[in-house]
């Protein structure tokens, strides 16, 4: 079940009514409802993989308790490694096995040995990277004595499989989400209104911006050899807005849905395309994943402490692993490495924490320096997205080579250009709204807060009409494949 379908429009009100009217007085019952709803939500995609989710949940629940009750460190370490190995093992089999098998065969072929690796034909269970990381953070937190093991299975299972975040995050932490699951939720009028508003904005981002951009990005990337440089640049720009609209739109719907149920999830996006450098971009893009890698990989490796070599190594490791997390393809690895290269000068010159506040805070417009810095960062990001979107490294390099050829200065030409002009106007308006709302949790959080209600309602209806009118051809959420 996708957030942007009519099925979800029926599913959510049913869950909401049962949650606040039928099970409200009994926390256990309310959590059981959330669990059943989450499993139903997941099984709508493919019920067979529900067992994998259940197994992963049981594994971490059990090893968590075992770690907590362990008589000594050795025993505790055993249960930690058992959980880590099995969790990563599943991820490895479903997501990375074919990649390693093919890469190994290619490497041997370079040495003159020819083998036909055994590959498996399985579909990737949706959300496996997300719920595996949920579980891993939980057992790692127990191991490091940050939290105690959860002994109520239902509460733990809700933490892992809470439907708004189950298939594409945000990647939650037990320290943040579990306490909310354990205590009775109080209905909050302002938060509920805010939740609905955030869902509306998320739907706009996904259905109007991302799905329409996808049509052109797919057309241009899938036939890139047929297009000139300026068209390829447009294709890269369309993908840049597609992936932002798609993933941040998903996150907005997830956060809004959870807020309707009285639960606050971690923020995942903070206007990343207004970043002044790559370090700031990574503090604003897929925040829950970046912070996960920071806390469970970068810091344990030594972080930014130690010698220059250690810092460089850690930076590359975290970015490459982050790239690899997205998928078993060299394109993601190079995308990660490229971001590390972007990041490195800032790290080495100690300027990676220069831009912590949102750009042009308290001002309507940025100054020239800020415009220049944002433009450079945006441009670098667009280049990196080409690797992310391309089918192979060869495809990415060919794409970039043609994009930066002399044909960059010829007029773009592709099917549906007149509709693309309308889309460009929509993207422009979208970015203006994003800019004006950049100091809030999401762009329209306070838009119209001081307007009279008819005007405010007119604004929301206008968004609904835009969704109705310009809704692109339904596309899967990009991050479902990760």
């Amino acid at each position, binding site marked *: 079940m996708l957030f942007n379908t*009519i099925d979800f429009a029926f599913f959510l009100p049913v869950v909401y009514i049962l949650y606040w009217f039928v099970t409200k007085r009994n926390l256990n019952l309310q959590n059981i409802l959330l669990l059943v709803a989450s499993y139903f939500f997941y099984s709508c995609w493919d019920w067979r993989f529900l067992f994998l989710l259940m197994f992963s949940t049981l594994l971490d629940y059990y090893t968590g308790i075992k770690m907590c009750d362990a008589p000594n460190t050795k025993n505790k370490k055993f249960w930690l490694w058992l959980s880590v190995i099995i969790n990563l093992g599943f991820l490895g089999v479903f997501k990375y096995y074919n990649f390693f098998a093919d890469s190994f065969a290619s490497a041997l072929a370079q040495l003159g040995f020819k083998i036909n690796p055994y590959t498996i034909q399985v579909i990737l269970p949706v959300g496996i990277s997300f719920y595996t990381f949920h579980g891993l953070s939980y057992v790692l937190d127990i191991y490091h004595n940050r939290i105690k093991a959860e002994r109520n299975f239902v509460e733990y299972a809700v933490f892992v499989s809470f439907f708004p975040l189950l298939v594409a995050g945000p990647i939650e932490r037990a320290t943040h989400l579990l306490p909310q699951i354990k205590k009775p939720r109080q*209905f909050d*009028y302002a938060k*509920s209104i805010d939740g*609905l508003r955030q869902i509306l904005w998320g739907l706009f981002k996904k*259905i109007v911006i991302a799905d329409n951009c996808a049509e052109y990005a797919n057309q241009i990337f899938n036939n890139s050899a047929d297009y000139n440089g300026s068209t390829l640049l447009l294709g890269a720009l369309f993908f840049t807005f597609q992936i932002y609209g798609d993933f941040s739109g998903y996150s907005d719907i997830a956060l809004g849905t959870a807020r309707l149920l009285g639960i606050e999830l971690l923020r995942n996006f903070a206007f990343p395309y207004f970043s002044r450098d790559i370090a700031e971009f990574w503090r604003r893009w897929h925040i829950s994943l970046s912070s996960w890698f920071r806390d469970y990989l970068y810091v344990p490796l030594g972080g930014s402490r130690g010698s220059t070599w250690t810092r460089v190594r850690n930076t590359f490791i975290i970015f490459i692993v982050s790239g690899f997390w997205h998928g078993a393809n060299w394109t993601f690895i190079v995308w990660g490495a490229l971001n590390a290269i972007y990041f490195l000068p800032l790290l080495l010159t100690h300027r990676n924490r220069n831009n912590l506040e949102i750009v042009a805070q308290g001002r309507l417009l940025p100054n020239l320096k800020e415009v220049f810095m944002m433009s450079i960062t945006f441009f670098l990001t667009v280049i990196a997205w080409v690797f992310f979107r391309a089918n192979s490294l060869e495809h990415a390099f060919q794409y970039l080579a043609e994009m930066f050829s002399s044909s960059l200065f010829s007029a773009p030409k592709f099917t549906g250009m007149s509709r693309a002009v309308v889309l460009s106007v929509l993207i422009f308006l979208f970015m203006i709204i994003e800019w004006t709302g950049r100091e809030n949790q999401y762009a329209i959080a306070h838009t119209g807060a001081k307007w009279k209600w008819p005007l405010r*309602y007119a604004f929301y209806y206008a968004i*609904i009409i835009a969704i*109705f009118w310009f809704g692109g051809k339904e596309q899967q959420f990009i991050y479902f494949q990760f």
Partner: protein
Amino acid sequence: MNKFHIKVILFIAPIILLSVPLDYGLSYLLRQSDLYPGELEVWNDIYNSNANCDIAIYGSSRAWVQIDPKIIADTLGGSAYNFGVDGHNFQLEYLRHLELLKHNKKPKTIIFSVDIFTLQKRKDLYQFEQFLPFMLWNKNIQKYTSNYEGFTSTDYWLPLIRYAGKTTALNNCLKILIKGKPAHKYRDHGYRPENSKWNEDLTAAKEKQEHYIVKFDTATIHLFEQFIGECKSQNISLILVYAPEYIEGQKYIGNRKEVLDTFKSLSEKYHLPFFDYTNDSICLDKNMFYNSMHLNQTGAERFSSVLAHDIKMNYVTRAEQHP
């Protein structure tokens, strides 16, 4: 909590209350548009009961660009209407037949233009917007369009939902609202000849693949046989016609003989007249076609006359002699 629910209800209520009139309005506007070459005109005639006729011509684009109902009516007597559906196979042609019978008097005779596409089934719902104005709460349309990629079940039952994101259809509604409906109809009694010269469709097709192989769809064949049975039980005379194809195009179809044999055996099995023009001299004359599967206006007029004459001589006259 109540305040929240009241606000939500007040916000959603206008959308729900307006959904039916808005749906009606959009459908009304779309029905007047020229979105697809005359398809909506034919549907309008069917649903407005303006498609009453003695002789109905069925088939795909090879019906509506090739068989002139006026020539047929003039030669055979009575009235005629061409119900050819562009780009579709029998399943959708059958849907049009059902809707015709539902909203109009039944025709006495059906001239069915069969071809290599009749008994196949395409995956996509070609020109799906043509169904939008008519499909709400319409069980026939749901039955025969829902097994294609295109609509979801809610599209058939909830007002307005099916228009969401259908930008082409919505823009056409807006165009009608601003500019008014088109001054002239595109088709005349469902017929529109193509006044074009030979194009490169066949060359392009050959570049894509050496031969085209027809893949029969079993369910479509069963439905076709069911249709033949229904025509018999309703006393509707059914005539199968295989219109001319340009000789080079005939060679391009890998299993053409199999297609023809299928229709021949169906005609024999159900004792139906079958007029096969695939060996007619028209097939050798490139000037009569605009592509290998479609006659141009000159070819269509000549073929319509030949067909009308042949039906009259071989079928109507014989029927009159042996009622």
